């Protein structure tokens, strides 16, 4: 059985990234003093128990042509927002889905999603598809298309 410090160490290495080479897990297993099969078991557990959302490679959307994005904000009744949020989080072209604090009276929206596309037209078409296929036409929503980037640093998928 691994102790908590070993587990933390492995998680830290997994989140920083591994080398792309022959036997990429070997070094990490040795570093943490466990066998490779034990390491595989542990990573599988992290995925199964939702400690991590997935294990694999992360692709930068902008580098493969997904250069346009919109923040789409929704006003969802408080007792439905968890359900709608979970649903929208499953959509392929939505990278982020958060409940945020409303700021009344200026800002009534509590659900924030980020939709990506190759063109602005694609982003809006995707939004239209998402609205129709999930039956959420009746909630107030607003679209904030990005027109210029002034700063973008640190981890992806943060905004």
């Amino acid at each position, binding site marked *: 059985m691994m102790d908590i410090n070993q587990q933390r160490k492995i998680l830290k290495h997994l989140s920083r990234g591994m080398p792309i080479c022959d036997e990429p897990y070997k070094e990490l297993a040795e570093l943490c003093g466990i066998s490779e099969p034990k390491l595989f078991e542990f990573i599988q557990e992290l995925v199964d128990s939702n400690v*991590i959302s997935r294990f694999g490679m992360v692709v930068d959307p902008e580098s493969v042509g997904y250069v346009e994005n919109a923040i789409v904000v929704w006003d969802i009744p408080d007792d439905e927002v*968890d359900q709608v949020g979970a649903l929208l989080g499953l959509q392929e072209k939505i990278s982020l889905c958060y409940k945020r604090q409303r700021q009344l009276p200026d800002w009534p929206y509590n659900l924030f999603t980020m939709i990506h596309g190759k063109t602005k037209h694609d982003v809006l078409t995707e939004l239209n598809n998402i609205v129709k296929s999930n039956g959420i036409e009746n909630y107030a929503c607003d679209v904030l298309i990005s027109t210029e980037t002034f700063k973008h640093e640190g981890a992806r998928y943060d905004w």
Partner: protein
Amino acid sequence: MDISEDDIKLINRVQRNFPLCKDPFATIAKELELDKNWVINRLNELKDNNIISRFGSVAIRKKDSFSTLAALKVPPERVKDIAHLVSTYDEVTHNYLREHEYNLWFVVQSSSAKKLDAALDDLRLHMDFPMLNLPILESYHSDMVITL
């Protein structure tokens, strides 16, 4: 960088259900009927060209009080100047112009709740425009798998 049909197969495959075994790139190469050494070299090239940003785990984002999304309502003729001023703050990690009455949208991040509040107070003090502060209350999803 030119992306070939084989690259697309590879990029689509490596983003999820990554094999957990001694020689995972051999497993992937076999599945896709590609050469293992080519697979390893090509993935490293894709990484060097920033198409692949990382090989590892994707964290589930926990709501945290040390970061927030903020927005300013700035008159169009002043928005570029204000945007550059906002970007000078170290705590601001992302800053976008967006088509809306609230036109400047930025993420403020810090190492403690206190420092975050101080940065927001300082921004309010220096910008005489309506500002929204919209912290995360719940995270439902923060990841994207791209199918090419």
